[in-house]
């Protein structure tokens, strides 16, 4: 086990800080999503509000303001969950660039472009 890419101490520190920032983004996104989903589930069980089965993403069920709020929170939680790994990739580009790891920054940028492309083309399922 060895470091295949030795680097100066400052760059190494920036690199480690970058890794910790990526971990933080993943943890933060997950906790926020879990908070929204947990609140939506608790309210749904407590007040017997159905979480909408299927239907278009923006199809909020007709009902009281409370029904709407619970379903919006659940949907936001799922969207936030989905955005978390994408945000991780997006954040990695400036982080790697700042740490002097240009090739890694380019890999991140490549993944981001392909992700956007795949979503636009509806290619990935």
């Amino acid at each position: 086990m060895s470091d295949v890419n030795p680097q100066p101490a400052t760059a190494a520190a920036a690199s480690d800080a970058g890794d910790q920032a990526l971990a933080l983004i993943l943890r933060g996104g997950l906790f926020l999503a879990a908070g929204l989903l947990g609140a939506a589930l608790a309210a749904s069980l407590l007040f017997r509000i159905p979480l909408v089965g299927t239907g278009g993403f923006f199809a909020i069920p007709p009902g009281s303001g409370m029904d709407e709020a619970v379903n919006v929170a659940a949907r936001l939680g799922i969207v936030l969950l989905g955005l978390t790994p994408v945000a991780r990739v997006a954040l990695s580009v400036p982080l790697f660039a700042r740490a002097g790891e240009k090739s890694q920054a380019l890999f991140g940028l490549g993944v981001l472009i392909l992700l956007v492309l795949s979503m636009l083309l509806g290619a990935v399922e």
Partner: protein
Amino acid sequence: MLIPLLLFATGMGAGTLGALLGVGGGIVLVPVLSLFFGVPLQHAVAVSLACVIATSSGAAAAYVRDHRCDVRLGMQLELFTVAGAIAGAFLAPHLPKAAIQILFGLMVIPVARSLLKPTPTEDVARIEGRTVEVRNLPLGYAASFGAGTMSAVLGIGGGPIKVPVMTLLMGVPFKVATATSNFMIGVTAAASVFVYLSRGALDLGVAVPTVLGVIAGATLGARLMPHVPTRLLKKIFAVVLGVVGAQMLAKGFGVDLWSIL
């Protein structure tokens, strides 16, 4: 009240297994949601995809922080996997799917046997420095592209292919490979989950408790991972691989395994 609790427990089991093995947990979730909860298959797949993201983010946050996964290798392979997945999505209608399913099913046996053999890096579970020393990097890129294509063609998550590729082809220690796989799998699933969301195929009543269970399970799995012997993890992974292989063989021969069960 009972159903959300059962969904939470199912998610927790899948999340723990996924975090330990570097797989999304779809292998557990899709059949359980379909068979035991009566969720239509397409909706079960959509919920499973949301759960892959939860497993990936939950486990990877801990693995990145603790230097257990190779962020740099993961991002390099991610590029080729996503490219392969896009290619696979477009190639799928033109490829002999049944033949590929049978081939994959047959390949599982030697791959599982090779994985079970002890390696010199068996006990390595942390990264010293920025990245692990790997061999056959260009071949690893090509295999990752192939893994992405296979995932799209066969409709399976990338973990069961990525982990053997990293371990057997590139010499990445098993635990580092599973942690790195966890880091990678959330990205492709994210792209897919938005497609399902926009089509309205994600049942929130099922997804919310299951995803919450997966988050709890993935967090638990990431904490357990350092304490679970690599030999045991490899054996469980081989079993999971065997189940995926059996599923593929059955599909290749036109048999619906789950309906038989």
